């Protein structure tokens, strides 16, 4: 009797070890480039160009402070933050109700709608650039942050709808019905029961929208002239810059997004009944 039990135990331990190795490889795969980016961003020009590479940053702020002092960088950084925030609000504000409707109601054309919403991603942005620019100039929203946020919302919306759809599908209808029976209107039941349960997923969906906007470079380059976002600004200015400036620019792009994710991480890993870390 005891032999097969031990075999299962060994197999489980092996599987666990394999999982750990896989997780370690995946972590290094993601973190190593970011690590080198950060090391080189905090190194002097000589250290960046030297070989072999240092593993410890010199904590030299020269490249970064030069870049931050460079005319227009701070403005474009703020522009990026504003556009990403508006995109986040728009795509969750529009996407979550659509996802909820898809999850809870039966209506004609539901399957087609789910397919069509993905089609907004089927048109490459370069193809849309000219008509979009003409339309934006006519409407007077070219070179405005809200105008750019609308384009980014279009890019993020399909994901917001589909993520929130599966999110709300995962909240049992019985919970909502229980809330109605115990005195909630439909809106109250959503606010007091569905929303808190769906919050971690909504936060993930919001981050996704933020990152899509933060990283988007094409529309920002085409539609904006005075009010460029950081990606468009850096693309324009760092293309011909020396290597240490490119690293500093890269760090400037990665760090705010990473900080933002760090700040709302507890909503991502929230487990009811276990303390949020």
């Amino acid at each position, binding site marked *: 009797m005891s032999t097969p039990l031990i075999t299962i135990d060994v197999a489980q331990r092996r599987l666990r070890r394999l999982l750990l190795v896989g997780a370690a490889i995946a972590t290094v795969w993601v973190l190593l480039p970011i690590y080198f980016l950060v090391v080189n961003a905090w190194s002097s020009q000589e250290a960046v160009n030297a070989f072999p590479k240092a593993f410890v940053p010199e904590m030299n702020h020269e490249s970064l402070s030069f870049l931050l002092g460079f005319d227009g960088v701070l403005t474009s950084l703020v522009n990026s933050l504003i556009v990403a925030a508006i995109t986040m609000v728009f795509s969750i504000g529009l996407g979550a109700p659509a996802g909820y409707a898809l999850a809870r109601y039966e209506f004609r054309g539901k399957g087609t709608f789910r397919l069509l919403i993905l089609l907004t991603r089927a048109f490459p942005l370069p193809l849309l650039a000219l008509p979009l620019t003409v339309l934006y100039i006519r409407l007077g929203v070219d070179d405005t942050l809200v105008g750019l946020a609308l384009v980014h919302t279009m890019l993020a919306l399909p994901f917001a709808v589909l993520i929130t759809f599966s999110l709300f599908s995962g909240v*049992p209808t*019985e*919970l909502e*019905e*229980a*809330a*109605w*029976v*115990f*005195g*909630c*209107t439909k809106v*109250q039941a959503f606010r007091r*029961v569905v929303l*808190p*349960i769906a919050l971690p997923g909504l936060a993930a969906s919001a981050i996704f929208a933020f990152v899509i906007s933060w990283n988007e470079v094409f529309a920002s380059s085409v539609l904006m002239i005075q009010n460029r976002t950081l990606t468009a600004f850096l693309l324009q200015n760092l293309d011909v810059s020396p290597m240490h400036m490119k690293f500093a620019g890269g760090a400037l792009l990665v760090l705010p997004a990473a900080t933002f994710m760090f700040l709302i991480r507890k909503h991502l890993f929230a*487990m*009811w*009944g276990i303390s949020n870390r």
Partner: protein
Amino acid sequence: MANIAIQNVTKSFGSYDALKGIGLAVADQEFLVLLGASGCGKSTLLRIIAGLETADIGEVHVGGERIDQLQAKDRRLAMVFQNYAVFPHLTVFENIAFGLRMQKRPQEIVSAKVNQVARMVHLEALLDRYSGQLSGGQRQQVAVGRALMTQPKVLMLDEPTAGVSPIVMDELFDRIIEVARTGISILMVEQNARQALEIADRGYVLVQGANRFTDTGAALLADPDVRKSFLGG
């Protein structure tokens, strides 16, 4: 008075007739059990009374008042759902307090009432826990406690023992008997026909959306037709 009167309730889902002109009466303080094979319309009837479904035709009266036009929240009924529907993001305390919180009662009253109900359903020691930290039986106790909080006219239970072990099932039935003794009207849908009939005052047996047998629990248990169809001889 919290008697229930259901008149000629009919409900179809597309071409499928779930309920065909059901009439049913529960007296004040009576414990009635609804039996029948799965898919015979028992749960649909319960959902219509609770206001979670609308009947195509027919009327529902509770305590002499017609309620089938009211929203679920205004019916002042309580329900224990099949999978208990305990809110996973709230503690046991807040789950039980839910109905009173919606009525915006003062904190002292809510606390006092929750403690009283928690003693009744044996949950005093678990008020800080979340549903993920409870057993199936404890979750059912939370659902019963939450249902009793608002002093409802009628308590409805939808298959409260579905998917629990026989030992837990006996405990759950004991608890339901305790609740029934407090003088509340109870309408319970249940698969375990024999045990349900032993503890209920009366039983209704639905067959394909229509009412086939109605009698006291003991009489139904003794009826050869009922025994043959539902109790395995």
